């Protein structure tokens, strides 16, 4: 027998196909999933629809029972919120995208009406977070506030952990999250329990290594050959690339069917999968990080 392939794609696929087999055999049970969109752009659910092996249909039919999802569910209004409240009667995994807006007691982000009153994202996050068996903070806004909390943060948005200080959660930073990071982690949870995480609660299988350490343009960096504008094929470090401070597997995994990624597109990484994005990563692009010194 040849050794198993260790590419990212192969690992994610192995995880999910094993999960499916175990589900079919009845050795593991389908779990309920509540997908909560809070203060953000709903870019993560769109990214998850881009999932491939597993794709969304497979996830829905074979991995979890999706009980609530504002972007996709047929029900609307109070009947939709009723489904959300009812889902709390059974065990569920909670996935949250978007930040929690604190301003005005959370009234800056109302996700629906319940019993005639507005239900805020803040209330929903706390209520559902308290009872969830597992929590995923999906994307930069949920993990630490992200763009929703960018200076001057008019909505006083924060990451999910801040309103659930005592709850353990798996954090999946990224803007948006790569579908594999979420679906692979979910598959691991269903099959073997929570995956190993680092001290910032990120699954090591996706977030262990600096982009810079696996960048195909690293040889240019090592030889001091730097791009001076976007569109060049050399190291983008001097245009403000955040690869040296961002731990995630974009260089080997790549995006959208594994076809490309920001550095492959001749642009600097903007550190969207690192805590502190966007403000700690700004400016994203600069043409003058170093000056050329002549005749000295």
């Amino acid at each position: 027998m040849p050794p198993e392939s260790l590419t990212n794609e192969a690992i994610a696929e192995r995880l999910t196909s094993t999960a499916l087999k175990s589900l079919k055999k009845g050795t593991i049970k389908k779990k309920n999933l509540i997908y909560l969109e809070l203060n953000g752009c709903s870019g993560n659910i769109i990214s998850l629809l881009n999932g491939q092996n597993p794709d969304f249909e497979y996830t829905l039919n074979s991995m979890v029972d999706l009980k609530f999802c504002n972007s996709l569910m047929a029900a609307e209004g109070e009947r939709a919120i009723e489904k959300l409240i009812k889902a709390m009667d059974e065990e569920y995994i909670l996935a949250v995208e978007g930040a929690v807006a604190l301003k005005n007691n959370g009234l800056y982000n109302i996700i629906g009406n319940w019993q005639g009153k507005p239900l805020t994202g803040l209330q929903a996050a706390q209520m559902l977070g308290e009872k969830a068996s597992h929590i995923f903070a999906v994307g930069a806004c949920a993990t630490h506030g992200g763009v929703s909390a960018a200076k001057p943060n008019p909505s006083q948005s924060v990451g999910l952990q801040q309103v659930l200080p005592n709850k353990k959660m798996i954090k999946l930073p990224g803007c948006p999250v790569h579908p594999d990071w979420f679906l692979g982690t979910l598959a691991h949870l269903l099959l073997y329990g929570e995956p190993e995480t680092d001290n910032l609660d990120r699954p090591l299988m996706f977030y262990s290594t600096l982009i810079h350490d696996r960048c195909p343009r690293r040889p240019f960096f090592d030889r001091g050959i730097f791009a001076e504008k976007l569109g060049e094929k050399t190291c983008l470090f001097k245009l403000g690339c955040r690869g040296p401070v961002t731990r995630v597997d974009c260089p080997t995994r790549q995006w959208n069917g594994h076809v490309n990624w920001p550095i492959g597109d001749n642009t600097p990484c903007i550190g969207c999968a690192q805590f502190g994005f966007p403000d700690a990563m700004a400016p994203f692009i600069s043409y003058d990080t170093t000056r050329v010194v002549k005749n000295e």
Partner: protein
Amino acid sequence: MSKRIVINPLTRISGFMEIDVMIDQNQVVDVKTKGNLFRGFEQMLVGRSPFDAVYFTQRICGICSAAHSMASSRALEDALNIEPMEQGKYLRDIIHCCEFLQNHIRHFYQYTVPDFVKIEQNSLFQSDHDDFRLPKNINDRITQHYFDSLKFSRLAHEMLAVLGGKAPHNHGVFIGGITTQATAEKVVHIDSILDKISKFIDEKMIPDVYDIARFYADYFRMGGGYGNLLTYGAFNHYKELGTLYVDSLVSTMESVEAFDESKIQEKIDYSYFNSINNSNQPNEAVTEPDMDKEKAYSWVKAPRYKGLPFEVGPLARLILSGSYSNGISAMDRTIARALEAKKISEIMKILLQQIIPGVDVQKKYELPELASGRGLVDTTRGALGHWLKIQDKKISFYQIITPSTWDFSTRDDNGFRGTAEEALVGTHIQNPDKPAEIGRILRSFDPCMSCATHVYSPGKQVKTIKVF
């Protein structure tokens, strides 16, 4: 006998929307549409590097992020006095085409279809109403296409990523057009996917939408509204190709005329903002929030053209380009989105044929000390404008008027309602306890509240009281 219907959340849209409808003898007599999330992008952008706006503004919306990169990079080109090379424009517009295809396929199948088709595969698709009229064989076929479509919208994003690096939130669209160079491999990769998507649109999506229209023909007489249409123009002004789709035009029931940017005003008569004159040019400073304003009921402002509310989006574009003449209604809007997907796939094919491999359109850009610019572009949901000012090489002002702000605006002092509000007035609600009509009509506009409410400002929440 009056009755109030509140729907919150309106699901299967981007973002959060609340609908507050008054009905009298089953007829809608009054409507308020309201966005329910706030982030404050315009304030966030002030002080940042102008270059960052292209990536930063994409985070306004996850389903139409490339649209903001288009408007933002054009606004910067305007401010920096840069005329992109034709190859740069082609490549950037190809990325934009990919987003149109992704958006239209997802909006039709994931957002619209569950309104008309009974999907029984999963409890997620359990509906509140029981107005399902499709014969079983058609219902089952479109249900199958709901799941099939996921592959094609995903593939549309794959094409986008080939040139744009990733999606959502691409890196490829930038000042000058695009950050990468085309290669034969990339062009063929995209072209091969495009063929598959075009086939899906022709053979599945368009027949599906016409089947739905056949059994829900009453929706051709619902959700019309004012009938004023506006486009900033799309896939036009090419040096050699001319106009592939539509030029900037406005039409009312009386006339069709060329679009004149100076006629745009944003009114705030019924929005929570204070200003001396209740009306601003897009490049004028954002007004002060004021929740205590007596008659205000929404954070969405009211863009007007020559004082009138306008509809923007696929139906407006198709009619103004002379390729659709059936009418203006909820069903026409839904059909237009599918027909436009076909049109965009044809335009994309033409653009791909113009590509010369290996052309590098990027330069090293210098920021001016003082400048202003604007980028107007028609995108998936309609007319999108970004207006910006640069001072000391930093952003000093940023204003965004999104398509959903046009379609979901508040009423104004001249007695005009917002476009979608007006479209609902007069609608007959079959069963007020399970209203299917409201959501169907509103979704026909493809609302994006993530976009429309990015300019919310601090204030108190207005209480709505449910009557049933």
